[in-house]
């Protein structure tokens, strides 16, 4: 059903957003609600604030547009757009976690993957200092060396291998 029916979504703080059905059904949750015929009036989303819903809609709209034949965006460009969309300075950390919760609730797999990978990259990129007397290292040591010693120190300390 590629109709350009409009769906109204209502955020937790009472704001209404009108979107095309194709954009709304990027969310599996909303898709099921529409199929179950609960979408005559606005669809209430009590778990999502207007600030976050606006961002989610922006994401879904871009991804729907990207896959339309006339306006086909290639994978590289879409990835670049995603990266800019999620860039941490733009999106503060609280918003990032709220986006994760929203993507999970609304069941939008690609947004969930994008946001979770971003958090994983932040953790990998050591955005917090390591403090541990066993390791005895300062933060500035290059990743690989720290990790190598970290693992062997930990393993040795745990007497996993040494008899």
């Amino acid at each position, binding site marked *: 059903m590629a109709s350009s029916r409009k769906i109204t979504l209502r955020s937790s703080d009472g704001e209404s957003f009108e979107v095309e059905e194709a954009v709304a059904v990027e969310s599996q949750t909303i898709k099921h609600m529409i199929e179950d015929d609960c979408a005559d009036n606005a669809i209430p989303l009590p778990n999502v604030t207007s600030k976050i819903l606006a961002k989610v809609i922006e994401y879904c709209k871009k991804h729907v547009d990207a896959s339309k034949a006339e306006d086909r965006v290639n994978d590289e460009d879409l990835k670049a757009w995603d990266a800019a969309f999620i860039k*941490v*300075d733009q999106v503060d*950390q*609280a918003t990032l*976690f709220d986006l*994760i*919760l929203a993507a*999970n609730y609304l069941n939008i797999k690609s947004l*969930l993957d994008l946001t*979770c*990978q971003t*958090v*994983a990259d*932040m*953790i*990998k*990129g*050591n*955005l*917090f*200092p*390591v*403090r*541990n007397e*066993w*390791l005895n290292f300062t933060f500035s040591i290059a990743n*690989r060396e*720290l*990790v*190598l010693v*970290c*693992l*062997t120190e*930990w*393993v*040795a300390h*745990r*007497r*996993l*291998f*040494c*008899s």
Partner: protein
Amino acid sequence: MSDSPPSLTTINSLSTDLIDLILSLLPVPSLLRASSVCRLWRSIVSSSGSHPNASPWFFLYGIHNTSPRNNQSFAFDPLSDSWFRLPIHTHRDDPCFSFIASSGFLFTTTPTFSFTRVFRNSWRATSPLHFSRINPLLAVFGDDPGPGLRFVVVGGDGFIGNLVDIEDRLAVEIYDPRSDRWDLCPPLPADFRPGNSSQSLSSALFRGRFYVFGIYSCFVSCFDLRNRVWSDVQTLRPPGVLFSFLIACRERLVLAGMCVGPSGPSFNLWQIDETTMEFREIAIMPSNLLNGLVDSEEEDKFASLKCVGSGDMIYVFSEEYHKKYPACVCEIGSDYGRCSWRRLPDLPSPVNKFHKVISFCSVVSIHTVLHGEADEAA
């Protein structure tokens, strides 16, 4: 990017499922580091779910026959694409300690049969095998951990009084750790002789059957672990194959081997139908990778190639010291999808010369490293 730590309350406001999802994207070294930040992170990491579908690590144990001080062990993590040097592993006072690795366990078969889980150096001896042997094929099956856990020992060369006897067809033996008993089962079919040992046989445990495959002979048969019978012996030889190894991956049986075709030598992967033994080519190692693994001066340059794999990874490496044991890996995509090859980084120096290289795959989770000596094996 900001210097301050991600707010602990916000990551904590995610459900455990979501935290697990994020942590599943992190390689073990990052998780280890994250768990050492403070108690809260430590508990977040320790209580996260395990990921049995994670890509397995690749282990290389180098054994020096006369000077155990030259033994070395290395482990490769595919997610962080890095090697780790493991502390030297010894087993009692045996300087020539050698072992067999299979299904997340390590085994010795002589002078006594003993086993340990890969990351716990707590060896347990079993009651003796009915037929003492060296270099058998081994696998672990049944629920692990659980009452159904069993070890199956197939083939090998008879070993009595330090003498090796390759003539006898040794019975298959199945061990129950709970009763400490070995059951006798029909031996490997005679078609595989000579060469009943792991020197010339490769094995794969797949969907309740233990497949045995002749690396050079290309004979294949499988042992049904429930009914304890051997299937008929068939031949599995895609055209041009010189030698190959049978590997049980997550969703499929894979044959990996060296091939000579009209366009020259290549290392190929085939998917194998487990009932008909029909093969279908799924990947070919890029020739520049293949050439990087071998010493092009040698006559029989591909003979040193060995292959292990499980899950979604197939590791191919050279046992020749000359090039410091180069290796590469093929990641098998799901749904007959694309396979991608890449070269592994060099082993961290120094790398000694070994008389024997033992290699295997095993999934390593952060829990393995953090919880080390918890629960007893089997």
